[in-house]
């Protein structure tokens, strides 16, 4: 399951590589309970977008999946001056990364 995390960039100074390294280390250090793969970190003029794959997740459920996703966003907020907006499961809503329509 591919999930896109959308942040307002605000005063972000870090590079995409630094953000990816930080998040990977932090999630592993904290024993993040589900398998994840950071597909990309994209910094645009206004937005920061993280694309993360959760290969073992098959369906989007309110709990426990959403709290684990919000925790990822929270780790970014704790470290960087950005404003988390929301996540989008690929195929469920509009995307800043994928230009094709995600819904039929």
């Amino acid at each position: 399951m591919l999930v896109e995390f959308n942040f307002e960039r605000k005063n972000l100074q870090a590079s995409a590589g630094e953000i990816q390294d930080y998040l990977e280390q932090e999630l592993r250090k904290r024993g993040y309970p589900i398998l994840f793969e950071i597909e990309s970190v994209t910094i645009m003029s206004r937005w920061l977008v993280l694309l993360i794959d959760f290969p073992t997740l098959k369906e989007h459920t309110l709990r426990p999946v959403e709290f684990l996703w919000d925790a990822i966003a929270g780790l970014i907020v704790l470290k960087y001056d950005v404003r988390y907006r929301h996540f989008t499961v690929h195929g469920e809503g509009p995307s800043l990364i994928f230009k094709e329509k995600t819904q039929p």
Partner: protein
Amino acid sequence: MKKEKEVYVDPETGLTFTRVDFSNREDVELYTKAEEDFADTVPDPFVPRNLVVAFGIGQAMRYDHLQRYRTRFLFAFDRDLPIGIVNIFRVIQDSPTKQEIYPVFHVEPFTSVAVAKVADAYHAVARMLNKEGNERVFCHIPYGHAVLKAKLRKKQEFGDFEKAVEILELIV
């Protein structure tokens, strides 16, 4: 505390409530500090301790952005001293009408704040919500907070709401 973010000053306690601005780094850091303190005193039954603060700030920002459950996030201050954070949301009737039935809130205090002051914050928020037109006002308090519960003027008690909290109706 910025005056333009002030949403309510309680005439009985003098406590001041301001809107949490998640675009303001100072507000984010203060909010995070309250989450950190609260996580130490009230373990979340669902979220591992080493992710709970990240989860708290992440979910709050998302709910605020999406206006999910019309949740409102406030800081409570006693003059310039922060008391804690206040989360207010609307419980939606579980029926086809989806009519909102009442507001529910809770206060997550800083650990250094006296219980009596936390109880004042609960009553102040209840009065604020009552003045906004809500005849009945409900709050969550964590199980085990017997002293706080004893200090609240409450009408009736409900059973389990989310396992780790009780829901009470406050007398306004």
